[in-house]
């Protein structure tokens, strides 16, 4: 029963969003080696506590968001757009 404060739409129910994945992953370039891609795709930490993850505001503004969420309590520390330009835009709006 998470509620996420979408920077564009405001606080919304989790049912409007879909979970993406680990937001800390830096995907390698397309021509990177198989082993680099294997690391990026298959290996994940199992974090107890706050982790950065991506959520897609699917039934809203369709922004991809970086959400810092506690895996224990579901507490959400921060929400920001994944795209750096959108981040700047949202800062200006404030």
């Amino acid at each position, binding site marked *: *029963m*998470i*509620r996420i404060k979408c920077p564009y739409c405001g606080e919304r129910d989790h049912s409007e969003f*879909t979970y*993406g994945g680990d*937001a800390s992953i830096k*995907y390698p*370039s*397309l*021509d*990177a*080696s*198989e082993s*680099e*891609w*294997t690391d*990026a*795709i*298959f290996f994940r930490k199992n974090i107890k506590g706050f982790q950065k993850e*991506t959520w*897609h505001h*699917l039934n809203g503004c*369709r*922004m*991809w968001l970086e959400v810092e969420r506690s895996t224990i*309590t*579901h507490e959400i520390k921060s929400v920001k*757009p*994944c*795209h*750096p*330009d*959108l981040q700047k835009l949202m800062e200006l709006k404030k």
Partner: protein
Amino acid sequence: MSSKRIDNFGKINRDKIISFSWEKKNYFGYEGDTLASALLANNIKIVGRSFKYHRPRGIMSCGVEESGALVTIGSFEKRDPNVRATSQELYQGLEASGQNAFPNVNFDFGEINNYLSRFFAAGFYYKTFMGLPPFEWGSGTSIWMFFEKIIRKAAGMGKLSRLADPDSYEHAHDFCDILIVGSGPAGIAAAKEAADKKLDVILVEQDSLLGGDQIAEKEFDTNKTLDELKNLGVRVMNRTTAFGLYDNCVIGLIERITDHIYYDKKEIPRQRFWTIRAKHIIVGSGSLERHIAFNNNDIPGVMTVNAAKHYLNRYGVLTGKDIVIATNNDSVYNTADLLSQAGANVIILDSRKEIKLDNFNNNIQVKFETVPYSINGSRKIKSIDIADAKHQPYTKIDSISCDQVLISGGWSPAVHLLSHRGVKAKWNAENLCFLPGDTKENITMVGSARGIWNKSDCIKSGIAGALDAMNHMGLSKTNYFFPKEGGWSNPIQPLYEVKYNKSRSKSFVDYQHDVTADDVRLAHREGFISVEHLKRYTTLGMANDQGKMGNIIGLSLMADLLDKDIPEVGTTVFRPPYTPISIGALAGRNVGKHFRPLRVTPMHQWNLDNGAIMIDVGLYQRPWYFPKNNETLSEAYIRETTTVRKSVGVCDVTSLGKIAIQGPDATEFINRVYSNAFAKLPIGKTRYGIMLRDDGIVMDDGTSWRLSENEYLMTTSTAQAGKVMSWLEELLQTRWTDLKVNVTSVSEQWAAAAISGPRSREVIKNCLENPSLIENSNLPFMGFISANLKDGTPCRIVRISFSGELGYEIYIGSDYANSMMDLIWKEVQNYHGCLYGLEALGALRVEKGHVTGAELDGRVTIDDAGLGKMASTKKSYIGSAMRSRGTLIANKDREQLVGFFPVDKKETFDAGTIVCEKNNIKGSGIGRITSVTHSPELDHWIGIGFVQGGKEKWNNKTLIGSDPVRNKQMELEVVSPHMIDPEGKRMHA
């Protein structure tokens, strides 16, 4: 037996008489009665049969913890089993009957189980029916399956009607500042305090009336309280159960709207399922009175002490004439007084040595240091044997004749909601109960749910709870304190079981599932000593009441056996729901046609008007086939397929996903996303493309058209449209943030029709303002144009072919779909063409070996699908590093896309058939058939699918298709998936 209605007691409305039926006989009660109180007023004592031993059971409580009076309400499709008679309000015409009994609860053949009970100890069926005793004959065979059916029939409670639920249900959502569960003294005090500070307060009460335990106080006026709260602006929800507490102060409620009246229409929902988000939750859910385990402690006439008080003061029913009260605490004395005033002869058995009480009627006989030992009687109580509390093992010292035994073994705070949040309860040795543990969430426990027993302290705790909530919300910084738990004048004394000294006792720990003290000891002997094992082995704490009464007795017995304290043994976790919820309420309005949203294309009605039979494809309804003159499905699709191959057909293909891709980096973007080359696609051309996932598996296929230098239109499969859109957005927003590209879903904006067949060019020519645009020179294969229809409507025409014939797709603004179809259909008819649906579309593409979702199922690589040659070797793209990773290609014998023919051309087969080697027909075989059809052109059944090693390995060899589900086998020949016109001459024509 002599429970009866008496004058001068109770708050029911005696001016309004209500008739109801019990076991098909008519009785009367009053407005304000529950079914249980009305049954008691009519002196009906046997209302149920126990789960396993089919022992007669009576009404044992007056609330949600009831485990004796589980009855069936209503009949036929309105039949509702396992309803607690104690919570069912009486209404005119209510039909109720007993359950788990044959022929009825008064005389039940199943009672024989009671005499065979030594065979039915805990876990008996696991032990007994694995094989036939004494040597477990048949063990390891399916003999258990045979016995299971019989056992399931013998056990269990009420039966479902098996008819569709005629009632409607609703889902609703709301917000508030503070939500308070329970309207006892604490809840009401909290609500008043918070509402006084102008906060938005919701007060939830499972009963029809407000007040909690106060309802059984003569001077308490529930209507006055309701008015006071409403005047303060409190939103009061009665007949509403808070069944579960979730993250972030989200609480689930079930509001019962028509369960207390006769209602056979659908306009008003029967129940409403609420999801409420509060800023703070105050739980004043009260506490539940426990019983004591002793021999025959379940004979009809046994009840909790507090229940007798409620039946007397709320319903005006005196539940017995000669009453024995067995206790270990102070809470019973007030009730004993009341019962005595109402005319009953009361004797109290108190296990304690002595107590001091003010204001207690000294005329009531109290036997100190005395405990209940065994009840005599089977269908009703005749007398009770008592024992000396000081002498263990206990022995009978005396017998008292009586018709009712009331028990109070202490009180357990209802910590369920906090337990839902994973907060462990703490054992309090002073008050012999589990108290709510600490939580950091915005939840405050108040009243007797906090272990506070007296009313004035409960009120104080309610006010403190409201202040606590306001402090949490940052609205005030008031100092407050919670009164200490407890509050009785004399301490409670541990008394959980009075052990019977003869064998074959029936000392029930958990009435609901017939779990006895001996069952707990058996579990201990057999090693099931952890609480979770104890629960599952004996079923202690399961079923309708979820151990509300019996859990702590079971824990104490296990603690005793292990020589530990109760907190060391632990407690099981309570999970939602607090009380049972009907499945209908969970489903709400999402039933039947509203089970999920329906998507239709803009020409949906046009298709229906022209005779389409529809089929569900994801959320869409698409034309399946267009029967002529009562054709069957197969007759229709074979005719449609033949017509397309011979002449021309038209088909609604609107449901394909369509994505507009625009921006200076659009070409770079699309070239990274697709596995095949796109960088050099000329403007005005379209190309088939395959997308892979990061891990190198095929994600989706479709076409993309280059509209201009920086603009593309991408089509996707119907099923993956949403996923592809999200995927493109993810790539642009999270990975390739430097690319200047915008993607927009335009699936709903464009309608599309496929026109296929050798005459399709002529058809379209006749539909266009400028017919020359469609000439082969102007619109070659894989080209597209912008054109106007005859009526001037602009459209785009792309020359692509899924059918393998000369084919086009026309895309038009959705609003013009119907007029376009009218125009095309008129021309198609001139060439004796047809409308075709999904079945013919499938037949056409299977003949061509074109893959769809049935083949691209998330396990298939581009090479498996036979499309590896299309993948670019000159660029990097999503999945390029991983598509040839060792683990994917290590197995040289991966399943490859092939076509299948039956060796006997008269043979048919179905999708899902497992492909096996001739002498090795087992397991998952070496392949599978994914799509099948009858091919009109080849005049036999064909299929496509996968087989290890592909066509190369199995050329000219016979394989076996095995279809165990349909009990079928056939010989198969492996062929190329491109079964018709493999060179593609027709579509290039």
